[in-house]
């Protein structure tokens, strides 16, 4: 059993999804899906502890040896991400049953859980696999499930958003496919470790350059790097709130993970940063993303949309961390991936609670809402402080390492830009706080109660995680430090 853990955590949701079809009652489906997700979560926690104790785990699918068969490889880089994905998914599912009551027609609830499980299986698969083509397959599994989930939104614009995302996502995935194909032509292998060994022999060929370029652009599309982010705000704004919670906390992180894996592991640090002006490109786009998206966020009335733009900005930070091309930089990116998952999870879940009661999350209808929904808005406040990067929250930890990485490179202006970005997030978070807390209740404020406990409890679990990992950083910092050291292991 233990030896199969690496594959189990993909298999469980993948098998649970069709099994849901057999269950008739939607409560049963929900219970079953949640159970499966918690099982997956337990598996990924076990995996993480195993990796921390005894190093990377390699699993040969079906007993076929690595270069021929498909290898699953769990190491310090992806193990924490697996925990994040399954953890957020489990917590969000707890709230999902209540949250979708008002947002998705009843007869579609079972499909919702099926698509959710498939999406999660896809994300976990991308993260766990050590095979380049497998990445593509799982990417498409998760993407197709995601398009479905988004299209379930009750606003008809959700359909259009889903279609837009489908087109953009498919083009991105096809680019990735081209990249993988060209890599295969040059090396005759699809296994990542194998690729990493063989690529240096042919690294000066045009084909490899082309492969790299296609692959990176494809991934950037998926992770919504500015200016390829256009699909994201609509998708996040119109998807059912609980879906947004899950996607915002995990999906883009997985794409960033793929990027890191290929830039640093498969193609290798030297290839990526010497043959291409990657550093300049990523830095420019990262900073531009931070500023443009944050400024746009300030002008949004729909809070889900505002947070979506904020996500685009946060992706800018992640990419900036990669562009430092240093161990601290990567560590900062990895930390921020985990931390941002926690904060965006909390923020979007609090919006899910607002939508549950109000039907929409428009700022113009939220005057004095904090007096009606104190616990929900307190959660938003803490999540927002974390997003800004206030000390004692996770956000501070990631900003701290990002700025340290910038200073280490001697890039003082970049460090200043990171802090200015935080200032912009102060503005858009504070707008909400001001309206919710310091405006008095008007007639346009709906007369609502506090959100039900089935949403509040998962919400506060996430909020407390934001605080806990902001104070006791030993786990997250040591894990990401080791992962970054592993990536740079060959260089030192």
């Amino acid at each position, binding site marked *: 059993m233990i030896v199969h853990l690496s594959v189990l955590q993909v298999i469980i949701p993948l098998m649970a999804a069709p099994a849901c079809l057999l269950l008739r009652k939607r409560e049963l489906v929900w219970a079953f899906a949640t159970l499966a997700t918690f099982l997956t979560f337990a598996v990924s926690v076990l995996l993480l502890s195993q990796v921390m104790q005894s190093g990377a785990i390699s699993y040969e699918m079906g007993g076929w040896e690595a270069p021929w068969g498909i290898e699953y490889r769990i190491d310090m880089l992806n193990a924490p991400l697996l925990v994040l994905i399954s953890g957020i998914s489990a917590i969000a599912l707890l709230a999902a049953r209540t949250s979708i009551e008002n947002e998705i027609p009843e007869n579609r609830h079972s499909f919702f859980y099926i698509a959710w499980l498939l999406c999660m299986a896809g994300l976990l698969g991308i993260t766990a696999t050590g095979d380049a*083509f497998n990445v*593509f*397959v799982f990417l*498409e599994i998760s993407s*197709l499930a995601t*398009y*479905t989930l988004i*299209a379930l939104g009750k606003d*008809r*614009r959700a*359909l*259009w958003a*889903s*279609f837009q995302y*489908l*087109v953009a996502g*498919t*083009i991105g995935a*096809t680019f990735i*496919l*081209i990249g993988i*194909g060209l890599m*295969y*032509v040059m090396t005759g292998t699809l296994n990542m470790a194998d690729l990493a060994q063989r690529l240096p022999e042919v690294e000066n060929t045009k084909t490899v350059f082309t492969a790299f370029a296609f692959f990176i652009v494809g991934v950037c599309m998926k992770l919504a790097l500015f200016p390829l982010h256009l699909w994201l705000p609509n998708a996040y704004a119109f998807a059912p709130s609980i879906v947004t919670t899950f996607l915002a906390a995990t999906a883009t992180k997985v794409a960033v993970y793929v990027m890191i894996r290929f830039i640093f592991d498969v193609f290798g640090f030297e290839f990526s940063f010497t043959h291409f002006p990657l550093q300049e490109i990523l830095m420019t786009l990262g900073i531009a993303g931070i500023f443009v998206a944050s400024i746009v966020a300030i002008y949004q009335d729909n809070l889900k949309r505002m947070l979506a733009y904020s996500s685009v900005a946060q992706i800018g930070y992640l990419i900036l961390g990669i562009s430092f091309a240093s161990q601290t930089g990567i560590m900062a990116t990895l930390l921020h991936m985990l931390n941002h998952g926690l904060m965006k999870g909390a923020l979007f879940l609090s919006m899910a609670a607002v939508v549950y009661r109000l039907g929409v999350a428009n700022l113009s209808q939220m005057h004095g809402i904090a007096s009606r929904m104190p616990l929900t808005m307190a959660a938003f406040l803490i999540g927002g402080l974390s997003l800004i990067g206030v000390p004692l929250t996770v956000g501070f930890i990631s900003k701290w390492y990002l700025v340290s990485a910038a200073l280490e490179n001697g890039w003082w202006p970049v460090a200043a830009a990171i802090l200015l970005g935080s200032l912009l997030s102060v503005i858009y978070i504070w707008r909400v706080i001001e309206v919710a807390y310091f405006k008095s209740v008007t007639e346009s404020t709906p007369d609502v109660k506090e959100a039900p406990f089935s949403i509040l409890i998962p919400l506060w679990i996430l909020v407390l995680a934001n605080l806990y990992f902001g104070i006791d950083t030993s786990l997250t910092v040591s894990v990401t430090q080791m992962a970054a050291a592993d990536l740079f292991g060959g260089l030192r």
Partner: protein
Amino acid sequence: MEFLGLFNYWVVVILMMIGFYIVICSNNLIKKLIGLTIFQTSVFIMYISMGKIEGGTAPILAEGVTLYSNPLTHVLILTAIVVGIATTALGLAIVVRIKESYGTVEEDEIHAKDKKA
């Protein structure tokens, strides 16, 4: 001769650009999906032609044959084709729903209706 030697790649590139152009420039959602399919198909052709070796046959052990085509790319692309079909099917399903709720499948009309609402 190099030009002709890379003949298959030229086909791929031309198909890809045609598909991409339709996706971007077409106003009709169905046509967009057609473009997307052409775009994907071009990549399938790239994979398939990559594995072919001149004079090679199918990889079945038979006497007197020593040159085989690489079967792996073909297997891979089978998966990709399945994925492509799933994408198209889902895309069409969404278009059906869009037609139901907007009454049109033209992009500009959809935007116009959203603006009004």
